[in-house]
C-alpha cells in the first residue's frame, strides 16, 4: 500500500516537472506608444528564379551503356529555386526523347527498367528513375538562398538498342502559385 502511494507520488512529481519543462509560449503585449509615427510603405513585386547547376555544366553525360542494360548514371544536377511568393511555387519537369545522332532511333523519357528503352529522373535519391513531371510543390516562399532539389539521371536499353550517341533535353520550369 505504502509502496503504491510512493509510486503514485513519484509519477505525479515526474509529470509536474515535465509540464514545467515544456516550452510554453508567452505573449508579449504591444508596447504602449506615446509618440507620433510616420508610415513608410514599399511595394515589392513577386519574383521567381531558377538555377540549374552541377558545378561544371548543365549537360549531363549519361556515359556508356550496353544494349539490354540498365544504369544509374550517378550524375545529378542541383536546381535552386528562389521565390518570395507566400503561396509557394511549383517546379515541373519536361523531358524529350533522346534521339540518336546518326539516325532516328530514340530512347523515350519514361520509367527506367531492365529490358526497356527509357531514360528518367528521380528527385532526392539516386534510384527509381521515371518520367517525373512534378519535382516540387511547396506552399510557402523559398528560403533566402533558395530551395535546392537534387535531380538524378538513369537510363535503360532494350536488346535491340542501336549503338551511337543519343541526346535530348530536360526543361525545369519554376512557376509561382497565385
Amino acid at each position, binding site marked *: *500500500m505504502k509502496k*503504491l502511494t510512493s*509510486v*503514485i507520488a513519484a*509519477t*505525479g512529481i*515526474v*509529470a509536474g516537472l*515535465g*509540464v514545467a519543462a*515544456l*516550452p*510554453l*509560449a508567452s*505573449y508579449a503585449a504591444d508596447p504602449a506608444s506615446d509618440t507620433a509615427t510616420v508610415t513608410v510603405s514599399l511595394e515589392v*513585386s*513577386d*519574383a*521567381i*528564379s*531558377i*538555377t*540549374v*547547376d552541377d*558545378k561544371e*555544366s*548543365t*549537360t*549531363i*553525360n*549519361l*556515359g556508356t*551503356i550496353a544494349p539490354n542494360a540498365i544504369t544509374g548514371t550517378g550524375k545529378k*544536377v542541383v536546381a*535552386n529555386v528562389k521565390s518570395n*511568393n*507566400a*503561396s509557394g511555387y*511549383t517546379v*515541373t519537369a*519536361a523531358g524529350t526523347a*533522346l534521339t540518336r545522332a546518326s539516325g532516328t532511333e530514340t530512347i523515350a523519357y519514361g520509367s527506367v527498367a531492365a529490358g526497356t528503352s527509357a531514360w528518367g529522373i528521380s528527385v532526392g535519391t539516386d534510384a527509381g528513375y521515371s518520367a517525373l513531371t*512534378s519535382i516540387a*510543390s511547396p*506552399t510557402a516562399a523559398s528560403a533566402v538562398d533558395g530551395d535546392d532539389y537534387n535531380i538524378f*539521371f538513369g*537510363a535503360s536499353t532494350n536488346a535491340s538498342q542501336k549503338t551511337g*550517341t543519343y*541526346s*535530348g*533535353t*530536360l*526543361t*525545369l*520550369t*519554376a*512557376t*509561382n*502559385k*497565385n
Partner: protein
Amino acid sequence: MKKTHLILGAFVAIAASIFAVTPAHAAKEIQISPTKSEVYELSAGDVKSGSFNVNNINTDAFTFELEVLPYNVIDKEYNVDLEKNTDYNHIVDWIECSAEKYTLEPNESTKVSYKIKVPEDIPGGGQYAVISAKIMDDSKANGSNVKVLGRVSYIVYAHLDGVTRIEGNIINNDIPAFVLNPPIIAYSVVENTGNVDIEAHYNFQVFDAFSGHEVYSNTDLNITNRILPETQRSEKFTWDNAPMLGLFKVKQTIEIAGQTSTTETLVFICPIWLIFIVLFLITLMVFWLISRARARKREQ
C-alpha cells in the same frame, strides 16, 4: 626572435587561407518579376499591352528565349501543366512578344513587352496562358547526354466579355481538434464551377482559450488565391510557434463567389508522453483506490 617570426608567419598563412575569397561558382540564374499579369478584361477586337522584367542575377551571361504556353493545373495543389490545351487557353494564339530571344550579361535586366490581340469571334469566360523565359544552351557535348535547361513563368489572366458564370463552393473547412505537436493547422478545399477565374479569401486566427487574447493571425497578409475555372484548390495554414501544451480557440474563414464559411474549433495541443504519464497516473490511482477499499473490507 626566430621562433616569434615563425609563429607570426604561420598565423598570417592560416588567417589568409581562412579569409581568402573563394571565387563564387559561376552559374546561370534567370529571374522573372512580376510573375503574373493584371486580370485583363477583354472584348472582341481589343489590343492590350503588358510587360515584365527578366533579370540575370548571377555571374554567367545567358541567352533566353520566350515561348507562350497554355496554363492549366493538374491537381488541388495547383501543380502546373504547360502542355495541355483546353477551351481556356485560346489566348495562347493571341499573345505576341516584342522579341523571341534576349541576351543578358551578369546583373543585367531587360523589360519584355507583349501584346494581346483579341480576334472578333471569342468565347466568354476566362483565358489563361504562360509566357515562359527559358535559358538556351547551344553548346556541343560529347557522348550521350541530356541538356538541363531552366525556365521561369509569367502567367497571363484574362476575362472575355460574353457569357460569364461566376460560381464556386467551399468543399472543406477543417481544423483538427487535437494535435500532438506544433503546429496548429487549418485545412481547406474550394472549387470553381464557373467559366472564369475567381478569388478565394482566407483568414486564420488563433486565440487563447482562457483569456480570449489573439495569439496569432494572418489577417494582415490578406491571403488570396486565384481559382481557375473547373478546378479545386487546397490550402493549409499553420501556427508554427504554437507551444507544446495548451488549449486554443482556432478560427478559419473562407470567402469565395459570395459564399462564406467559418469554422471555430477548440484545439488541444499536448505531447504524447504527457498523455501516457497522465494515463499511467490514473491507472495507479485506480489501483490504489481498489487496494484501499479491499484493505478496509479485510479490517471489517
